[in-house]
């Protein structure tokens, strides 16, 4: 095991994981209805291959990719396609989605397992299975995994890092899966390492998960090239750029990708989905979602079918929606999105639902007192106070000069600001404008 590594900056919010860390993953009964948006990841939107009235089983292909940076979408309940049209998306916009009504049978497609051992498959064959299974990065960014695992020639990956940091407060989905499926996780890592032709595998775990570190240590054993790497419990330790810096002392160049410094990071759930896809041909159909927050009756880690509506999830687990719910965040409390309504589906990239009760905490807004805490905490070494002021005053050239584009929107600055300024929101505004200016100019 390596000694404890970390990066410069970051904040220490209370981890709040005691609410769900000891709850075993529990599968939920498939819902009566699922809503599957046709755009759940970066890349081209999908083309539906079903029409209203079609009968589907769990795992039936319902939408196919239209480009290389895209993965197919599968039905997550068996039943009848109700509609293909605009439905509410968690981001607050209406998006083309396939709605399926369940027949209550939970009938599954026959998946095709490989003929022999997975180690007989080539890297190309492995990637094909991953693409066909519709796997995207499940740490939150939802980038098509087969693309990520296909760096262009010349970008050799020498270090593959498995991200079991789970630095967001409240979330324990990755932690539970690490404890409950350790062996399969290690095999998933081996598969990814094989695809990349990479010999060094680091399993990054934050120090607040000693049981996971122990389990992984045992499972990894003497596997050549594998090392369990404990990292300091700090937010955002799980950011891929921060992990790479902490574990390898290399920095991903601005505007670049981890492959530019020979590294690649994947999330625990992604690795497990790879395992399922390769050994059993099983597509990505469900997610372990941590349902948590104060005052819940049954907080825990639930295996949820992708497409299940949040309101149905709460009804199934909590017995209904409490009038005291003030805010529902999809994701973790630092980077998740506040849902505008509960009639939105769980997506492939969802890993948590954090319920905040009334009264919802609101940061008081004072002017910046130039304390510099944001500068000290920024894991990308930006000056959030300046960026926010520039964005507020629409000085886009200054935003560009101060590297607004590099902001990872982790929320450390807003978290720590004593003046309660909405730094992330302002920087996002500046970042968005700067990035789109370039696009507009090209035309």
């Amino acid at each position, binding site marked *: 095991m390596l000694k404890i590594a970390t990066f410069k900056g970051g904040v220490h919010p209370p981890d709040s994981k005691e609410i769900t860390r000891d709850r075993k993953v529990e599968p939920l009964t498939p819902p009566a209805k699922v809503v599957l948006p046709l755009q759940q990841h970066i890349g081209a939107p999908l083309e539906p291959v079903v029409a209203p009235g079609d009968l589907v089983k769990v795992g039936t292909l319902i939408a196919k990719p239209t480009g290389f940076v895209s993965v197919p979408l599968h039905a997550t309940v068996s039943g009848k396609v109700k509609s293909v049209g605009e439905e509410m998306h968690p981001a607050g916009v209406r998006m083309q989605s396939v709605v399926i009504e369940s027949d209550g049978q939970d009938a599954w497609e026959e998946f095709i397992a490989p003929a022999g051992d997975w180690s007989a498959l080539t890297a190309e064959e492995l990637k094909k299975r991953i693409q066909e299974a519709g796997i995207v990065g499940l740490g939150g960014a939802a980038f098509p995994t087969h693309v990520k695992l296909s760096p262009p020639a010349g970008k050799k990956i020498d270090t593959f890092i498995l991200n079991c940091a789970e630095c967001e407060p409240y979330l324990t989905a990755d932690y539970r899966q690490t404890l409950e499926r350790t062996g399969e996780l290690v095999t998933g890592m081996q598969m990814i390492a094989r695809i990349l032709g990479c010999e060094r595998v680091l399993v990054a775990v934050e120090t607040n998960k000693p049981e996971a570190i122990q389990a992984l240590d045992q499972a990894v054993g003497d596997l050549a090239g594998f090392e369990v790497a404990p990292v300091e419990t700090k937010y955002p330790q799980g950011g891929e750029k921060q992990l790479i810096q902490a574990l390898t002392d290399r920095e991903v160049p601005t505007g*670049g990708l981890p492959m530019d410094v020979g590294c690649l990071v994947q999330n625990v759930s992604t690795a497990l989905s790879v395992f399922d896809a390769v050994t059993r041909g099983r597509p990505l159909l469900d997610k372990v979602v941590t349902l948590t927050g104060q005052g819940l009756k049954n907080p825990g880690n639930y295996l949820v079918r992708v497409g299940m509506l949040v309101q149905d999830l709460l009804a199934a687990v909590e017995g209904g929606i409490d*009038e005291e719910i003030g805010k529902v965040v999809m994701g973790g409390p630092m980077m998740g999105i506040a849902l505008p309504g509960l009639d939105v589906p769980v997506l492939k990239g969802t890993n948590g639902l954090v319920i905040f009760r009334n009264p*919802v905490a609101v940061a008081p807004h004072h002017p910046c007192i130039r304390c510099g805490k944001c500068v000290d905490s920024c894991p990308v070494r930006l000056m959030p106070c300046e960026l926010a002021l520039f964005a507020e005053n629409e000085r886009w050239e200054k935003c560009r000069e101060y590297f607004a584009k590099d902001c990872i929107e982790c929320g450390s600055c807003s978290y720590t600001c004593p003046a309660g300024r909405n730094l992330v929101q302002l920087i996002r505004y500046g970042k968005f404008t700067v990035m789109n200016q370039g696009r507009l100019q090209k035309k």
Partner: protein
Amino acid sequence: MSPTLNVSSSPHIYSSESIPKIMIGVVLSLVPATLGAVYFFGLNAVVLIVMAVASAVGTEALCQKLRGAPLKIDDFSAVVTGILLAFNLPSNAPWWMAIVGSAFAIAVAKEVFGGIGFNIWNPALAGRAFLLASWPTSMISSADFPAPRDGSLSGLKLDALTQATPLQFIKNVIGPLLKEPGEAGAAKLEAAHQALAQMSTASYYGSLFWGQVGGVIGETSAALLILGGVFLLVKGYIDWRVPVGFIGTVALLAWIFGGPQGYFTGNVLFHVLSGGLLLGAIFMATDMVTSPVTRKGKWVFAVGCGAITVLIRIKGGYPEGVSYAILLMNTATPLIDAYTKPKVYGGK
């Protein structure tokens, strides 16, 4: 049916830090020195502090009303300014000086710029500079400082001025004597050397450390100021780089240039413990609004403060240079921030 949901930007949790919390922390850190001021200088110190604080808060409210801005006097920043302004007054200053000084500090050095967060200069120091320029005799006349409690320096046969602050004594009494010994006469020269020797003894350093010397009401006790400073450091309300850089630079430069007998003979302890250095380095230079936000910038700022302080003390017209050093470096702060941007992650 969905309940009414709050939809705001991430992050959705916040640390418990807030501006009032920080300001109240600063006020608490000033309590030891405040008690010391009352102990050493008596009742008028209380009057000055109360007047200064009342005037600061009242002026802030009035200015906000005139500006049409919402009333916001509950963040305790004006209280801090009031206390620090009072600390810069001699103990027998008239009560109206506390009021006028605070009013200037808040109205001209803070509210005119837009209130908290927007001012360029430290309001308390700007107030002090204003008072010094307007009523110099009331502010620095040495006859107005009460005698040091331990009676040090009083046995020497020197004209008056045994009641001066240590730095005034060095600059206005000892300095001229050493420069033109011929005019002064042998006895006086001898007395000057004796005084210097006495100011290098452990007992004198003790007086400087505990606060039994002349000075403005907040600056005399190193011990009480350092106590407050440690509290601020532990709480994370001040950045250690500024006081360490400031005091360290003064120590180094005073050692090299401050000795009357040539280079590298300066009395470091004397320079560090006397005058307004500790008050300035711990409580004024560390004011967040008027100092840089970057780490490197704070070092530049601190070293600049230290260098200018020593320059004024040794070569300038005033015996003490801390206030002007800080005000000058406040002026340079936006420039310092622009030139000490941290290297972005992954940058060249």
